[in-house]
């Protein structure tokens, strides 16, 4: 196992981790703010991928199609939120059960529209090649995905730390009662966070396509990883989601390469240890 | 300190402990940088009825949660019936004889009144682990619960869901549950909170009538209730004990009137 092995897997792990961040950031923010576990979050990702690949097949620009995938997902997510979820805001179990039902319906809807065959997605022209440095090979698209995810992370951090809305959201996360008392429009904060979570996951769908491709059941495969991220990073923490995503991405890549028979174990044993000894995760507050 | 002195000291403490129900020694609690309780020491003798008063934010509820074992303390110790219980869990303290009520009604809303009381009554008995015998075989428990209800005039509500009770009735059950534990120390967190005067006096009467010799600590805003029920008062202000003594002495204390009673008593 030479340098090539480590660099390759590290890069692959970071790229996959970046994709996980696009899903887990929404998951953790929605949870932190509303105490809702959105079990449909990975279905959002899958929907975004399919919408995006359809647009690309009809000649739309790859990046534009990603954004459109995010937008469609966001609209659908908000429709569900406004029609059903927001009524059960205080009832965490019912909210969870509703997102579960919604994931079920969405999954089957995707299967109905796009069929059961796996769809591979080509990277956008211009990023299909690789950079060679000595014997090392870096697929350009992986680098691009990492860069895009970090940009999105930066925007999220900035929005949370520096904008008025972000301040309101953080206040609501800390103490909803208090925030309401101080006149923060908590419901608007909910709406915005749910929208942002759905949008980013949907956007991630096509962006991740060249790496994960798209097929029914993909969401079910990503769900445990996304939850692993949230457990490791800590529920409700954006920093935790970023660090957790990259960690899980790396462990996933190296685990698969080094212990193919037990790669799942290499991810979930550390997760179990964190659950047992630090249930609030690396960056979270006590649940 | 020599060994002999230490033994004497222990013997002395033991002798004192026989009459002491609860002893707080230098209890402090911080939430982050916020100090909620600062070096609070209170000794409550067996059979004493003590009130803790103080303005909002004085740390009364925090103190209660620490005594009951729901919150860990930052510094100091809690002794109960002669044993150090500082690190003992809430449920173990309850099993050793502490009972408490809550400021916001904390009952079992989707169970019947009887079931609520049975939960309190069977808490110390082996049957709480009985899995394969239906509760219908334990008629005696239900009778015991019903008898308790009759005593406070809630007999007719025995089979209603607690959720369906009126607020005053819920407050009575709140106390009844704690009494059903047959406690050695009863902690009452604002038992009359939110009650109309007529209902409040019902609760006060209940407290005075039941268990005359019971050791009791009462947090209360309603001064009428406090003066009616307790013999001794401790005044908390910004997490510190600022006065402690017989009710009459505290009433007369100018400092207390200044900070809490607004000079109106």
């Amino acid at each position, binding site marked *: 196992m030479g340098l090539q092995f480590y660099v390759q897997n590290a890069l692959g792990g970071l790229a996959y981790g970046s994709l996980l961040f696009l899903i887990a950031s929404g998951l953790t923010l929605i949870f932190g703010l509303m105490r809702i576990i959105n079990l449909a979050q990975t279905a959002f990702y899958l929907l975004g991928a399919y919408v995006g690949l359809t647009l690309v097949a009809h000649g739309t620009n790859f990046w534009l199609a990603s954004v459109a995938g995010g937008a469609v997902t966001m609209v659908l997510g908000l429709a569900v939120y406004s029609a059903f979820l927001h009524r059960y805001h205080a009832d965490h179990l019912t909210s969870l059960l509703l997102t579960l039902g919604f994931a*079920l319906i969405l999954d089957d809807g995707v299967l109905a529209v796009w069929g059961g065959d796996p769809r591979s997605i080509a990277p956008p022209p211009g990023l299909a090649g690789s950079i060679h440095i000595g014997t090392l090979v870096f697929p350009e698209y992986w680098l691009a995905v990492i860069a895009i995810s970090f940009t999105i992370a930066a925007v999220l951090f900035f929005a949370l730390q520096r904008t008025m809305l972000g301040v309101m959201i953080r206040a609501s996360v800390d103490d909803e009662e208090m925030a309401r008392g101080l006149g923060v429009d908590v419901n608007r904060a909910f709406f915005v966070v749910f929208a942002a979570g759905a949008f980013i996951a949907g956007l991630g769908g096509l962006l991740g396509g060249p790496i994960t491709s798209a097929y029914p059941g993909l969401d079910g495969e990503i769900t*445990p990883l996304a939850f692993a991220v949230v457990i490791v990073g800590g529920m409700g923490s954006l920093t935790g989601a970023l660090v957790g995503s990259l960690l899980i991405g790396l462990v996933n890549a190296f685990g698969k390469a080094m212990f193919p028979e*037990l790669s799942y174990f290499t991810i979930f044993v550390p*997760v179990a240890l964190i659950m047992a000894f630090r249930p609030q995760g690396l960056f979270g507050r006590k649940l | 300190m020599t060994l002999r002195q230490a033994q004497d000291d222990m013997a002395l403490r033991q002798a004192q402990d026989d009459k002491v129900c609860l002893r707080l020694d230098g209890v402090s609690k911080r939430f982050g940088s916020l100090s909620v309780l600062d070096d609070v020491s209170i000794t409550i003798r067996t059979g004493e009825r003590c009130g803790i008063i103080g303005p909002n934010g004085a740390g009364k509820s925090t103190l209660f949660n620490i005594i*009951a074992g729901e919150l860990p303390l930052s510094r100091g110790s809690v002794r109960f019936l002669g044993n150090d219980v500082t690190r003992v869990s809430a449920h173990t303290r309850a099993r050793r004889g502490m009972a408490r009520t809550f400021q916001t009604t904390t009952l079992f809303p989707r169970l019947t009144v009887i079931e609520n009381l049975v939960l309190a009554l069977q808490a110390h008995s082996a049957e709480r682990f009985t899995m394969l*015998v239906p509760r219908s075989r334990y008629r005696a428990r239900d009778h015991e619960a019903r008898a308790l209800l009759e005593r406070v005039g809630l007999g007719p509500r025995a089979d209603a869901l607690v959720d369906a009770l009126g607020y005053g009735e819920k407050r009575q059950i709140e106390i009844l549950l704690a009494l059903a534990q047959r406690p050695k120390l009863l902690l009452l967190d604002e038992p009359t909170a939110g009650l109309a005067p007529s209902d409040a006096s019902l609760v006060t009467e209940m407290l005075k009538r039941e268990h005359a010799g019971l050791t009791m600590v009462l947090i209360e805003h309603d001064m009428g209730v406090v003066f009616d029920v307790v013999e001794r008062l401790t005044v908390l202000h910004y997490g510190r004990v600022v006065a402690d003594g017989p009710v009459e002495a505290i009433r007369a204390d100018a400092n207390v009137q200044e900070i809490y009673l607004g000079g109106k008593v």
Partner: protein
Amino acid sequence: MSVGRRWIVAAAAGFVVALLLPRLGVPTFYVSLLTQTWIFAIVAMSLDLLVGFTGLVNFSQAALFGVGAYAVAIGATRFHVTAFVPVMALGIVCAMVTAAIFGLVALRSEGVGFIIITIALNEIVWGLAYQWVSVSGGDNGITGIVRPHVGPFDVSENTGYYYVCLLSFAICLVLLLVLVRSPFGLVLKGVRETPRRMRALGYNVWLYRYLAMTISGGFAGVAGVLFAWYNQFVGPVALSLDQSTQILIIVILGGIGTLYGQVFGALVVVFLSNELSAVTQRWEMVLGVIYFAVVMYAPGGLVVLVPRLWNRLLGRRTPVTAEES
């Protein structure tokens, strides 16, 4: 007739009908579906003990179910343990031990934290079954499981096996009904309602949750063992997160905290997934919509909804029962 009497009569009548069904010329295919229904009702009841009576939403129930099933498969193919009683005991013990370990990890958190941790725990076990090929056969699973003899009875054909599952279900239902009506059961309900007050009353809340999880694991194990014999095959799907979700859906459809309602929940899910899939490929969507509607409009489940609809059809007013209010 008192309400209690009426229930006993209804349950007895239902049981007799269930006993007679295979003799009434019901096609083998449906007998087989009903067998599945009993199995899923058992595992759903085991989850209901946690969700409906203890207040723990456990997403790792399929792992316990699956551990029971794999215990049968591995016991039969490697150690030649095939008789009914030893295999059933093995499955129950394995599932209970797994549940006991899960409890140690998951019960460090409450509420939503508990849910997420059980999701991860389920995935660990699934990952083992899926990837540890040398033990579990990986994605191919383990075949060659033979249904046992029960005493002198050969239950290897479908009708005989139907009775095994029906009786197992009846025994589990009775045991669980007694359990939730026992003093211990009342404690569990107290823990579900208000853990804080339970602690103040002197109950070790953690211990009761832990016991409930372990006991529930035993019942899930029973269902898992029956499932392995039913299919004569075990694969990782049996303990997937989807399976956990499906078990939860059965509980929601049937009625949280009813136990017997799980029969109806299981009936709907089993028949939808088998019957409807012959008519339309969109059975999952139909299930999703039904489920969604139940969560929104009939949180008490089908056992509450069906009588209500029936009464409305007959133009009667629905009496408001204690459970609904």
